[in-house]
């Protein structure tokens, strides 16, 4: 199934991209998606603990399952205001 994965702020700098398309196996979780991308972008791994996850513009947890067509986002600690 096809996923769209978004990186923001420092994570986009680390990966060098703000968006990747990803082909994932069914029943995969957001945590597994992150592991896949951390393998592709090794500099992501040290940020794992501080990263927040979102699925289709809503906060999600690493064990949230993803579905075909989902937009998954990895968010560093926010600093708006």
């Amino acid at each position: 199934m096809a996923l769209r994965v978004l990186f923001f702020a420092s994570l986009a700098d680390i990966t060098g991209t703000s968006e990747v398309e990803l082909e994932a196996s069914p029943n995969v979780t957001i945590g597994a998606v992150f592991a896949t991308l951390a393998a592709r972008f090794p500099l992501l791994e040290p940020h794992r603990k501080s990263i927040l996850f979102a699925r289709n513009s809503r906060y999600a947890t690493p064990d949230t399952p993803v579905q075909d067509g989902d937009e998954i986002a990895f968010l560093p600690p926010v600093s708006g205001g």
Partner: protein
Amino acid sequence: MVQLVRERIDAKGLRERIARPEDGAVVLFEGTVRNHSGGRTVKHLEYHAYESMALQQLEEVREEALRTHAIRDIGIIHRLGTVHPGECSMAIVAVASHRAAAFEACRFAVDRIKSAVPIWKKEFYENGAVWVEGDTMGL
């Protein structure tokens, strides 16, 4: 009313849109860009957002503020893109019959936005720039 804008924030206009003659207290908070940070001179900031999610989260902050505080209304505008020192990056206006609720709701909204809304700022100095990262422990 929640908004993300790329031009200067019109805090007075927000106040005028939100306040009505039945209100007795208006509290406006403006976050403004400081010309220094950690001993360095700040040339400007850049605010980036996960816009669709940030708007949803701002609306949730607004609704939670309305649900948990005795206010009549609250409006939030956050600026994106380049913002210079002295300029406003965020404005929140809370209106209520009585001041305690207006103060508390406004403060609640600032705190929630700073911890939960997917917006990030990058500070630009004379030489170099860094992403500021907040504290998400409270989330």
